[in-house]
């Protein structure tokens, strides 16, 4: 099963996306901060990362640099940053179906 890490400092949004992606058939772990994401990444490897841009203790770039994942998807609230850290950038609000499709399209 594809293992996904969802990172969002809005706990309700993170929880919603987590349960929705589980229903889509993914194994999902959740972090609410860069620090939590780092801690989870130290324990296990993830196939994919889905992260919000603004986090209370840093940004999605901090997460992407510290989480080793085949696929990295950024959820951006407005104009998305340039760069090669993310394979896909989805504009919020993105439905779980959009996120799931982006993951399936990008995963090997």
């Amino acid at each position, binding site marked *: 099963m594809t293992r996904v890490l969802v990172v969002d400092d809005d*706990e*309700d949004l993170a929880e919603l996306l987590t349960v929705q992606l589980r*229903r889509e058939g993914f194994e999902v772990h959740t972090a609410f901060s860069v*620090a939590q994401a780092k801690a989870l990444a130290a324990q296990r490897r993830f196939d994919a990362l889905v992260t919000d841009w603004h986090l209370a203790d840093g940004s999605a770039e901090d997460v992407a640099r510290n989480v080793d994942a085949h696929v990295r998807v950024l959820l951006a609230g407005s104009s998305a940053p340039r760069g090669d850290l993310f394979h896909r950038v989805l504009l919020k609000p993105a439905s779980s179906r959009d996120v799931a499709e982006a993951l399936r399209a990008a995963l090997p």
Partner: protein
Amino acid sequence: MIDSTYADLLARLAHDLRSPLEVLRGTVGDMPSLENKADREHATRLAGRALNRLLRLTERLDLASATSTGFSCTLVDVDVRALAQTVLARMQAAEPRSSLTVELKGNAQWMSDPRLLGAALSELVSNAFKFARTRMTIRIEPDALIVEDDGAGVKNAELAELLSQGKPGMNGLGLGLPLADALARRLGLTLALSTCEPSGTRSRFELRR
């Protein structure tokens, strides 16, 4: 000056509205397809929390509007510790963070408007709840009310910007601090922000002498 403050507060509403609306949209959209009772109950809980956040935002919008149109203060004896306990209880019910250690220290009696002071304090406590890693503290001194967290903190250069012409959504900060600042000024208080060592943010309401 007041008009620009009001305009700034309204601009920040977009950020504060987005998350609960996204949660509502997601949970309501999911409902018809949820066959499992536990999934339906979970979605209902999430939708309820989102509705509470929107209701709280409505209260804050009323206060933000009043910073432009003017509102009256009713000064009475306020037990600041009891007020802080009420604010904390509301926050813990609305945005539970079981892993967070919350401390309340000291006591004071002020002449103030309890509704407005409580609303201003709620904004600081809400930010501390969101950004604290493990601990937040409310310290009450005879002439100051201080909220501290051990979060990542904000760079000194950005602190002043948060109260004046801050960037909506910067680090997840939205309406809260400018509203707390406007309320504090109406109540004859000053709001000062500083960084904590080794990390975190300190927000301090101080009685003007």
